[in-house]
């Protein structure tokens, strides 16, 4: 029957001849996830250490990796305490950007007139360097965690709106007709078609939002704050404690990466079809 024929066509084409064992082993090792970037990182750190001792660079300019490591270990309580502040601000900024950005994108799709009125403004608002707006927030709400979280939100919000809008617009006319042919109204189209179809784009936006939220939180702490990794950077700069600056940057980078991949991981769970 044609069922078995069609089912058979799903099977991959016949296997190729196996490559030679040594080449195969090298290829397998190289294919280990994260191995190549990790090796590159080790090489860079080694080159850094070699360059610093070879050219006798002053510690307050570029500390050797060993000093940075020592700073990380000795100051870990300080870094963690300030890291927690930055983490809270980042997560608030991110959550707000999703909570405001996604409904706004949906609203602009539901009321196209509002969308046409708002969207160009939203896009042009991106030309304004948001770092430059930060002092305004300080004037309005003062310094502290709230300000940093709000700046994180302002930075993270735009990619959520734009990408969710893109996703909602990615549905073709025929699919909408299909829903209508089933007697479906606009709410059915949203529930069964537009919202699920926009999820992959939405997650692209959320990943970007997480990366931007970290930047926003740091900017907020630069402008006015008494805690957080951004504040600690300013303090370390004042003390010419370059090793602490580097340690701070390491914590920021690792934390930012973890947050980004957390969003990515959840996205892969939600969007299993693409």
């Amino acid at each position, binding site marked *: 029957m*044609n069922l078995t024929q*069609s089912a058979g066509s799903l099977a991959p084409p016949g296997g190729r001849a196996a490559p030679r064992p040594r080449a195969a082993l090298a290829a397998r090792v190289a294919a280990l996830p994260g191995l190549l970037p990790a090796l590159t990182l080790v090489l860079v750190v080694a080159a850094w250490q070699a360059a610093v001792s070879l050219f006798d660079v002053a510690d307050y300019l570029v500390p050797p990796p060993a000093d940075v490591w020592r700073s990380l270990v000795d100051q870990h309580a300080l870094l963690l305490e300030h890291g927690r502040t930055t983490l809270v601000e980042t997560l608030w900024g991110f959550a707000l950007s999703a909570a405001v950005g996604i409904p706004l994108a949906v609203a602009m799709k539901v009321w196209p007139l509002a969308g046409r009125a708002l969207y160009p403004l939203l896009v042009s608002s991106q030309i304004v360097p948001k770092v430059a707006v930060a002092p305004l927030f300080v004037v309005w709400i003062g310094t502290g965690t709230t300000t940093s979280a709000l700046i994180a939100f302002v930075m993270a919000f735009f990619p959520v709106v734009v990408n969710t809008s893109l996703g909602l617009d990615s549905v073709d006319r025929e699919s909408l007709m299909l*829903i*209508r042919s089933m*007697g479906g109204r606009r709410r059915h189209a949203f529930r*069964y078609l537009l919202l699920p179809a926009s999820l992959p784009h939405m997650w692209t936006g959320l990943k970007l939002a997480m990366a931007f939220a970290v930047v926003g939180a740091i900017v907020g702490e630069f402008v006015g704050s008494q805690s957080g990794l951004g504040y600690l950077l300013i303090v370390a700069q004042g003390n010419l404690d370059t090793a602490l600056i580097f340690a701070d940057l390491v914590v920021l980078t690792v934390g930012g990466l973890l947050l980004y991949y957390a969003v990515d991981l959840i996205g892969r769970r939600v969007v*299993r079809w693409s």
Partner: protein
Amino acid sequence: MTVATVPAALPIEVRGVSKSYGSLAALSEVTFDVAGGEFVSLLGPSGCGKSTLLRLIGGLEEPSGGAIAIGGEPVAEPHPQLGMAFQKDLLLPWRDVLSNVLLQADVRGIDRARLRERARALLAQVGLDGFERRRPGELSGGMRQRAAICRTLLHEPRLLLMDEPYAALDAMTRDQMALDLAAVTATRATTVVFVTHSIPEAVFLSDRVLVMSARPAEIVADVAVELPRPRDLHVRRDPAFTACVERITGVFERLGVLRDRRPTVPTAQEER
């Protein structure tokens, strides 16, 4: 409402229907009737407005002029008894095959439990048993289109509008689909309008073939296929079958849609 309780098949009346998009006229003054339970094919060259006409009957677009009625009621929105099949399968990639078929129930607010067994039976009928939990991305084009047909048929529609649903399929799958469709519509409880540009397919499936001209489309011939339904594939060697195919081919030749260097086939003496 009342329609659901009346068992009689739904007739379609199309009266002087025109459709233009801006200055582009797609349909001009199209008039025809489809009796309840009849299977009618709209046959014409690509881009002649067949799909537009089908969407107008489906209530998915509004005509620029003229009127369409289904079961005596003017069309204002998609008929509650409508089942529509599109050129593309339009399966949702995030739903598995069974859920895609059940989309028809979800959107119509019918309890899934009531139609799950029917969905499985329909899938089995088109050779997709065992594929219920696969995602559309894992299926071949022919399998996807068959799943889409199951979705169209799930709620036992009494009005079937099909827009070249088999256009993308290979010849053998196409034959199988035609046989399946012939079996499904054999009871004549369902009125079918089927858009195609394959002459043998139209003749094989239909009670009547309406031949359309190029844009702006008009109906240029109304050919009755005097063969009992449902038919098997061997009917294609029946003299009545070949006569119909020849006659329609002749119409297209006279329209200039088909051009042949040899003299025109002489069987087309009963043209309207």
